[in-house]
């Protein structure tokens, strides 16, 4: 089964969720699994029509647990694999997200977040899953999560997520929100030759259980199924050869630490921010769609002669600690803007409080994007 590529090169006026589906196809995804859920359904709906014609396959599962498991299974079958959901689906997937981490499985999960807790409000966007994607499965681990702010980035970051998953053998989350999923804007899809793709390294021969298929901080080649490699994969504690080991404390330590170090050791290559705070006294820190309001508020403040900068976290996990620290150490005040009650705030505060004052500003009404005027009023209050 070849790689699926049927790219809609051109300039479009497109919904974010559709742009995400275009990104899935442009990235060469071979398998997608999903279960209907608002506000993410349009992604899977589009793939149901487009992916089979682009050479991929698709399975609508009986629940999100099955969706993430099937995607992991297909990844071990050698395909770039994908699932898409919203917060309640992430909650159901959590146990097997841990399995994907433990078995070092490349996997892309798009989370079009919605207002919660519980069934909440399906059609209202809110960044409600920022911590649960990083900490929601039991045990200690490290994933990658990136935050699009526009339909264009729903395309770009979906492709990027596949590249990161393939390079690091790890689940990668695209942390969209209902707003960006349902927003319609200009989306430019480049020519196929302009879209850089990363493909996982695959084990080439060697005796099973003597090959180091797992627990390599430099990312071991993946011994995918179907090639006579006789691969042993278990989500239970295992050594470098994939063999279950439930008795050796050193193996247990490496089983937890190496997949974490694999990501944190490469954090400088993974983490991306947009920093625009040179000489700023106050820095607005944000991610996702809120960054659009943040930039607008900063522009208005600067026009009024206030030294305000912005720091946008394009990567949420691994956490951009150095970048936040640099902003805090150059400014007098950090104002954190999130469309929730402050999920990333404690992490930002931990890197800032030693160097400057810090405060949090949620939206006027949870589930609504910050009005730039409202941010500006807060800036004026702080800087007066």
């Amino acid at each position, binding site marked *: 089964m070849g790689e699926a590529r049927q790219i809609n090169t051109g300039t479009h006026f497109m919904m974010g969720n559709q742009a995400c589906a275009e990104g899935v196809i442009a990235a060469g995804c071979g398998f997608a699994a999903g279960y209907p859920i608002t506000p993410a359904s349009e992604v899977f709906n589009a793939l149901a029509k487009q992916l089979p014609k682009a050479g991929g396959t698709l399975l609508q599962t009986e629940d999100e647990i099955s969706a993430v498991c099937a995607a992991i299974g*297909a990844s071990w079958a050698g395909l770039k694999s994908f699932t898409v959901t919203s917060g309640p689906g992430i909650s159901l997937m959590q146990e097997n997200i841990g399995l994907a981490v433990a078995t070092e499985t490349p996997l892309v999960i798009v989370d079009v977040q919605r207002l919660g807790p519980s069934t909440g409000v399906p059609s209202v966007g809110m960044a409600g899953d920022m911590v649960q994607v990083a900490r929601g499965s039991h045990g200690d681990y490290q994933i990658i999560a990136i935050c699009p702010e526009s339909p264009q980035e729903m395309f770009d970051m979906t492709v990027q997520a596949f590249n990161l998953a393939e390079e690091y053998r790890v689940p990668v989350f695209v942390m969209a929100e209902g707003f960006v999923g349902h927003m319609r804007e200009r989306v430019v899809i480049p020519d196929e030759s302009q879209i850089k793709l990363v493909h996982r390294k695959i084990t080439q021969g060697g005796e099973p259980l003597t090959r180091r298929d797992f627990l390599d901080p430099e990312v071991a080649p993946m011994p995918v199924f179907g090639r006579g490699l006789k691969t042993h994969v278990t989500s239970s504690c295992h050594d470098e050869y994939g063999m279950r080991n439930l008795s050796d404390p050193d193996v247990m330590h490496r089983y937890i630490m190496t997949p974490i170090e694999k990501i944190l050791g490469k954090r400088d290559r993974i983490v991306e921010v947009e920093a625009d705070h040179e000489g700023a006294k106050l820095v607005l820190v944000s991610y996702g769609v809120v960054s659009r309001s943040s930039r607008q508020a900063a522009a208005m403040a600067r026009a009024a002669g206030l030294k305000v900068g912005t720091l946008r976290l394009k990567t949420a996990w691994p956490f951009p600690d150095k970048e936040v620290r640099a902003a805090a150490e150059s400014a007098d005040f950090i104002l954190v803007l999130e469309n929730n009650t402050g999920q990333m705030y404690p992490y930002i505060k931990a890197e800032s409080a030693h160097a400057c004052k810090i405060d949090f500003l949620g939206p006027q009404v949870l589930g609504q994007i910050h009005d730039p005027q409202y941010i500006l009023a807060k800036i004026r209050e702080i800087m007066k």
Partner: protein
Amino acid sequence: MSEKTHPLRKYMRPQVKKTTFCPGCGAGIITQALLRAIDELGLTMDDFVFVSGIGCSAWIPSPLFNADTLHTTHGRPIAFASGVKMGLPDKHVIVVSGDGDLSAIGGNHLIHAARRNIDMTVILVNNGIYGMTGGQTAPTTPHGLITITSPYGNAEHEFDISSLVTAAGASYVARWTAYHPRQMTKSIKKGIEKKGFAMIEAITQCPVQFGRVSKQGSAVNMMKNYKENGIRIEKAARMDASELLVKIVEGEFVDCDKPELISSSAAALQGPTGGSN
């Protein structure tokens, strides 16, 4: 003296020197039935991917089998296997797991995979109890049996898993006890060759947990019970429900041919609606 090797040893990982099964466990019989089926079909381990969940029988393919093996979370092997099969449609995908794994926590995946008629073979090892965790009541535990979690007698009723999976739409379903390994082997062969969802329910003795609480005792006594109370499905059809209470109905519950999921999807894409935009 030349070293004697079991004729099925060649299918096992050379590094593996022991199993995790208790004395008297039926997992060894199931293991042999499965490997003998592969052997008799003339297939190699490279023709297969094995997927298992959590529980004693999930440790049959992982780590014993010298093949691609995926050992997963509790209840989910069929969900993982569905993705594996869709990625590798030319391989035989076999799930080996227990009654708790596949019919309790994973029951939803079992019936939906059967309904979809995705081409895979499930060996559901049914010992009527949670063995690995110490003898708790399972959905397959007989009504009234006293277990660790039913200290006053099991108030629930047991699943007839083979009938359930037949009703859900499987192409091939058979049930055999560990006393009937030849019939079981034959059914596993048919299951592997069946283009569609196949399940072989292997009723097996767990003397350490089930034997203790059921007062059936040793593995030998449990095998005697299978011998005396195993009854063919054709004969059972002519008997009253009261007569069947202590019986174990064995045989083929269904053997039919109908469109399989992956080939149907591929055909639909080429069909009248698939060709247009």
